[in-house]
């Protein structure tokens, strides 16, 4: 259902925050995080996950396997 940010790799550059169409990204404790309840993997908005596309550190915004993948409402 969602992407997550690997905190230890996040440089806190803030690039992802304004790109998220669902305002799911926020700063806490010096790095950025994704609220899994809000993230839709950008489905229905863009054909690329915006946080992944803009993040300068490869492999920092990744699919969170602990939650099921998002299903666009039918």
């Amino acid at each position: 259902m969602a992407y997550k940010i690997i905190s230890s790799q996040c440089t806190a550059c803030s690039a992802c925050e304004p790109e998220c169409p669902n305002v799911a990204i926020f700063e806490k404790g010096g790095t950025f995080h994704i609220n899994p309840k809000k993230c839709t993997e950008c489905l229905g908005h863009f054909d690329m996950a915006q946080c992944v596309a803009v993040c300068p550190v490869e492999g920092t915004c990744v699919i969170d396997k602990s939650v099921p993948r998002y299903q666009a409402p039918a």
Partner: protein
Amino acid sequence: MQKLVQLLEFGAPGAKSLEEIRQQVASAGCSSKGGSGKSSCGSAAGQGDLPPEVWEKVKNHPCYSEQAHHHFARMHVAVAPACNIQCNYCNRKYDCANESRPGVVSEKLTPEQAAKKVLAVASSVPQMTVLGVAGPGDPLANPQKTFKTFELVSATAPDIKLCLSTNGLSLPDHVDRIQAMNVDHVTITINMIDPEIGAKIYPWIFYNHRRYEGVEASRILSERQLLGLEMLTARGILVKVNSVMIPGVNDKHLVEVNKAVKSRGAFLHNIMPLISEPEHGTVYGLSGLRGPSAQELKALQDACEGEMNMMRHCRQCRADAVGLLGEDRSDEFSNEKVAAMEITYDLEARKAYQAKVELEREAIAKAKTAELVKLADETSAIKIQVAIATKGGGRVNEHFGHAHEFQIYEVSTAGAKFVGHRRVDLYCEGGYAAADGAATIIRALNDCTAVLVAKIGICPKDALAEAGIEAVETYAFEFIETSVIAYFKDYLQRVEKKEINHVAKGDADIRQGAFTEA
């Protein structure tokens, strides 16, 4: 001027808010147009071949006017950490390598914190005339933060010039805002106009909600950069172009870039050396690509010079640096200290200082002309480089052992020309001469015939002499250009009388690693 000191009392509990300061300034009724600075510069004190309207805009800008950096200071604030492209010479854990240097991390500020810091610095440093928003990140990838900062500052300190540096990708979208905010200087970093070459510099860009890679990414970036440049110059906004010289990638190509940006109205082109060390963790650093040597850089700058003004005094200082170029006082103005400061913005004192500088500059220009006249009847094919130890003010006034950097002048019977800076590690740390200190400095000055200093110890003097570099104290506290020409005349005479042999000098190193003061 005494008044300025009081605001450095730190820790005042009831520090004023920005809003209060702004109201104070507004009620003091200051206007941005001063009586002083106007009549000045009838004499072309450093104007060179710039058109008068451009000179008027840049003469107090330490980054753009070669001699303004002797007297004026700029300040960068890091309010815009996000970026929308990736450069191979940049590791974004650190500052943006376009405008500052890799390996240094700036203090990130909110627009409000930044504006207060600017006022604190401007009030205690009357030389501070320019505020820039540069890296880390791209100011126009963070337009809200950047423009908010400008808005806050110009409301309180209308005499401070605003500038920003961008990679250009989103520049066309913001040109109107830039004009409305009265930003009069924009720097665009343009490293290529050929997307094939760009693909070796930029792995990707983020544009229109997509990540583009390879040649396509560079094609878009290049189009946007050149479009932005044209849009700005069409509106009369000054544009400087920065290029990073990457040996084996874009070094030869930069001559093309120079032509392209000149024809689109850029008024200055600043070619900077790639700074690349494995420990910076950049793609280039890790793959072993090295920066150019001093003479390689100079050869490229010379090749472009016939075309337009080249900027040779860029020190690639860190993004949040405070002070005259090459000097850094940021520690005095940390976030914490600024938050506790009482600030009174004294526009009058600032104007008085700036008027004084104007007089000093004219004196320098006159002295130089006088010295040049004396050189007029000499003819010689000899051309040498001379290094200067200076702490500013346009004079030979630094002790060799305390110099963080040297200014390099090239001199021939045609006159003296500033050609660049060499940063060095301090020879003298706390009174102890570093063991290999002299050796590093010699490598950095290896292409110079002499070094003019205010003072120098016996040991380093001998070490320099051994390397064929003459250390000269005769011109202590004199104007730099006058001294360089006087030294050169003396040098020619000694060569003529066969007291010394003229030898052509070799190449020199460009210091790697971040420039931070001890």
